[in-house]
């Protein structure tokens, strides 16, 4: 057994005969093992315990545990979907009809998958100690996947009225994202967020994807520069705003 394998034992593995032999023969690992197991008994002052107990017992009332993450994920997904469809319906659904069948299948399939994944991450973030994914990872994956699809699936690189139509799309996308983000943040308050910046980025990604979905349904412009900058920009901007709100909440 090597010192590296001994690390796994020190981190909670079973002390096997091999490990005991290694400890007997390796002074470095022996010293480390002894140092780490030399934790003395620990006591808290009775007055401190009493104060803690008083705080808890004072406001003790039955509470209902949060519904499972799946329920919240479905709620987040429904809200994002409903806002995207409602916004596109209000502005006329012209994007969907401008795409070919395969383009529509890939774009909306990816959006649905990303919305589902992000909804789950946000739902898991409502519980401390849940097995979750960092908001920045979720956001980077979403932005990367969307950009990759736009760059590979569409071939028209004509800029057209890049700024004029782009700003209009960006504003519409951000409006949808703001509505989704605000509702998601209100629901999130039912849980307990331990990493506001990461969760803020995840909520931003969810909101941005809702805004992006609305744009894909509504916008008939299929130019790569327009899609890659203005449509995907809604997602990136939402993530940035979500993370910034998280930073503000953390320091508040």
């Amino acid at each position: 057994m090597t010192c590296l394998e001994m690390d796994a034992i020190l981190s909670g593995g079973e002390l096997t005969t091999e490990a005991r032999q290694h400890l007997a023969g390796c002074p470095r690992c022996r010293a480390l093992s002894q140092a780490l197991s030399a934790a003395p008994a620990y006591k808290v002052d009775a007055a401190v315990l009493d104060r803690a107990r008083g705080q808890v017992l004072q406001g003790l009332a039955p509470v209902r545990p949060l519904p499972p993450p799946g329920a919240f994920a479905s709620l987040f997904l429904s809200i994002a979907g409903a806002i995207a469809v409602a916004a596109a319906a209000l502005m006329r659904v012209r994007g969907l009809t401008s795409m070919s069948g395969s383009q529509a299948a890939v774009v909306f399939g990816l959006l649905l998958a990303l919305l589902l994944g992000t909804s789950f991450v946000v739902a898991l973030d409502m519980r401390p100690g849940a097995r979750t994914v960092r908001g920045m990872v979720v956001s980077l994956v979403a932005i990367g996947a969307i950009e990759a699809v736009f760059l590979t699936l569409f071939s028209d690189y004509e800029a057209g009225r890049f700024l004029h139509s782009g700003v209009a799309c960006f504003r519409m996308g951000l409006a949808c994202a703001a509505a989704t983000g605000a509702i998601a943040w209100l629901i999130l308050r039912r849980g307990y967020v331990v990493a506001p910046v990461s969760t803020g980025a995840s909520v931003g990604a969810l909101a941005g994807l809702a805004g992006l979905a609305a744009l894909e349904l509504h916008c008939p412009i299929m130019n790569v520069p327009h899609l890659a900058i203005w449509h995907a920009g809604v997602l990136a901007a939402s993530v940035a705003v979500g993370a910034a709100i998280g930073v503000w909440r953390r320091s508040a």
Partner: protein
Amino acid sequence: MEAYQNGDRDAANRLIETVSPALHRFFAVYTSDRRHADDLLQDVSLRIHKARHTYRPGEPMLPWLYAIARHVRIDGYRRREFERREAALEGVAEPAAPARPNDRSAPDLDYLLASLPESQREVISLLKISGLSLEETARATRSSVGSVKQKAHRAYEKLRSLLTAEVAS
């Protein structure tokens, strides 16, 4: 924990008595000021109470508990840094760092942990003092098991070197 969620006073009492020493010890690893650890314990008790509905019956409790405690510790650290800067501006002395124990026969765990970077110290204190498993530590710190293993390995290597140097001197 489920009885506590149902409003059982005895269960709440038992929970406080069981987890308080471990949580206080978790905070004490990061501060030489025992009163600060006392304050953090008060804070975490209140937050556990407020967040008790977020615990899911049947799930492991330690990651839930230590994720909240870690959040409280980070908040407390930020608050203390702010106070320290204010105190420095006003010329008030800072509390002393953990001192090397006089008894040099036994290595002092707090002294050893103080030599580690923040993230490695956190992982070692959760694994070796709080008694969490690798998976539970990963959940409490919002990282992967691989990342926890890597931090633990680096910490062990550093501690080995430190202990070897101590023996040599």
